[in-house]
């Protein structure tokens, strides 16, 4: 599904990813862990095509296609979507308007009414209060509400590769379990997931197939979910 080779990325002249190799298969849940500043979120932003992150060298292949030069909307259309760590508020734009534009942009015929129903159903499933769904996106939302709204969008847009960037920050344990359950369901239908986190908590609910650990812009460890337990006991000190 996704294959990253020798990826080097800089932001404002400073190199932050120093040769990353990473692969994710179809339907696979890959956990990307590492301490703050290790480059996890930078990798996520590079994958969605955030123009602040400049690819110096290396290759990003997605479903057999090189996507290095594609814009964020083009990547989204191919099926790469991210749940943001800090989703922004957009005044006067509702989640329905945005999703309608997204789906129609892909050439799908969607009725506004049908979408409204779908949003209401997903909202209920994720325990999002109804009145939030008709408000401007993320405006006046709590941290947890924002994260749930991100997952709601993902459930409707149905990515091939879902990137969860620190989805666990600012969530209570019930919300965390709920989000994990909803993502897990989607993964079972063949969606690949890149879970970025520096805590272990989330991974108890969303069990990864493989774990990759990053530090200072390079991969320092790869393996199975036993790495999560190791990190829980020893922290990131073992990679010093």
């Amino acid at each position, binding site marked *: 599904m996704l294959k990253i080779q020798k990826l080097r990325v800089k932001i404002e002249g400073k190199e932050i990813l120093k040769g990353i190799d990473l692969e994710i298969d179809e339907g696979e849940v890959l956990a990307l862990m590492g301490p703050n500043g290790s480059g996890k979120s930078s990798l996520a932003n590079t994958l969605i095509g955030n123009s602040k992150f400049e690819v110096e060298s290396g290759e990003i292949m997605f479903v057999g296609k090189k996507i290095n030069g594609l814009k964020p909307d083009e990547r989204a259309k191919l099926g790469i979507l991210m749940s943001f760590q800090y989703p922004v508020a*957009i005044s006067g734009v509702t989640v329905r308007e945005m999703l309608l534009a997204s789906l129609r942009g*892909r050439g799908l015929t969607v009725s506004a009414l049908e979408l409204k129903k779908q949003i209401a159903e997903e909202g209920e499933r994720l325990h999002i209060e109804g009145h939030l769904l008709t408000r401007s996106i993320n405006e006046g939302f709590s941290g947890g509400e924002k994260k749930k709204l991100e997952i709601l969008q993902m459930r409707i847009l149905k990515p091939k590769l879902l990137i969860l960037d620190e989805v666990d920050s600012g969530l209570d344990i019930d919300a965390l379990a709920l989000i994990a359950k909803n993502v897990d369901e989607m993964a079972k239908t063949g969606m690949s997931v890149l879970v970025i986190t520096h805590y272990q908590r989330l991974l108890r609910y969303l069990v990864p197939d493989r774990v990759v650990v990053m530090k200072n812009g390079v991969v320092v460890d790869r393996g199975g979910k036993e790495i999560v337990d190791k990190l829980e006991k020893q922290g990131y000190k073992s990679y010093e």
Partner: protein
Amino acid sequence: MSKQTDNSKLLEDKLYPLGHTDDVEYSFTAEKGLTEGLVRKISSLKEEPKWMLEIRLKAYKKYLEMKMPTWGGDLSSIDFDDIRYYIKPKNQEAKTWADVPEAIKNTFEKIGVPEAERETLAGVKSQYDSEVVYGSLKKSLSEKGVIFLSMDEGLREYPEIVKEHFGKVIPMGDNKMAALNTAVWSGGSFVYVPKNVDVGLPLQAYFRINTERAGQFERTLIIAEEDSKMHYIEGCSAPSFSSASLHAAVVEIYVKKNAKVQYSTVQNWFKNVYNLVTKRAKVMENAEMRWVDGNLGSHLTMKYPSCILAGRKAHGEVLSIAWAGAGQHQDTGAKMIHLAPETTSQIISKSISKNGGRATYRGMVHMVPGTWGSRSKVVCDALILDEKSRSDTYPVNKIQENEVVLEHEATVSRIGEEQLLYLMSRGIKAEEASTMIVNGFMEPVVKEIPLEYAVEMNRLVGLEMEGSVG
């Protein structure tokens, strides 16, 4: 430079579908420039009562004495001697659609008058240059005693009402353009809503400037008697002419005890028009006045709808949007004059500037001594879309009473990279994403105007945004 050319082509081809000129026969076209003789001629052609001629002549003197404002926009390139102050189309006002001359009908069809009328409107008045040539009012409204006429007809048929109210909310000496309007006014609407009558559907007027260098000086007087309710919509468009046109209107509104009036404007004058308009309402006890004002077109607009809150618990509101594109300056705002206790007001002003456009908010809240218990809230938000464009805010608060509350919020923002990335990461193209952000910004005001205008406004913004993201 090539960008300039593209932009003007966009205007000609797409953005300004109403940019056309129709051949209309005129029965009287004044020489260019203004003289006392012309003021007399206008009054005599209209067969006005003597008192109106006297008002016109007095106003003409005021006009000569007064200075052009030195604040606001640049007015130096208006050549007042190069303007025709009065043009009378040959066709007199027609009452039914069938009587409307073909050329004028075509114009109306282009701007969608009959459709609008069929669908939602209670009555249509359209000003074609200086005279109203087509007007109608649903029968049920005239049975309730609602009067909706051109100002000229209003003066002919209800001289006493006009005499009692004309020039009282906006005196001729208020500003130079108000003096000019008072001297040469022609057309505009006269609306009278009797006590306890709710007009229901909005009354609507279309104004057009159709003759090159035609100044348009329409005069509107609205009187809402006690416990009445009405909504008036003014839509403006002008064809594309190369030399500058002047539009200097005066709108006076009386909102009597417990009455409610909304006056909505969507103006899209062509980008060479000077739009210098004075609008003011006098709001009595427990009455409500709301101005909703969308300014998209013109070269320069100077317009500050005002409310004089003269009775206890009177409420005034101004909701406005200004769009300043290339070569445009929108100098707009609002004035709230609190004269009585427990009066409340709210100003929400949103502006967008792009391609070197300039948007200025200029507003005033004045609370005189004895206005205890009054509140006012002012919110000015500016969105600047590129480095070349500009936005300024000049709020003035004059508070002479202690027991009052005044809130003021102002924000200036650019389209955030983060917002753009967020929408694009959902699969939305950059251009569409920017348009969504701009429309979202305008939404609090746009939702207050009738749907057909809101749709038009969003469409125009979409066209303005085209090609804006590289």
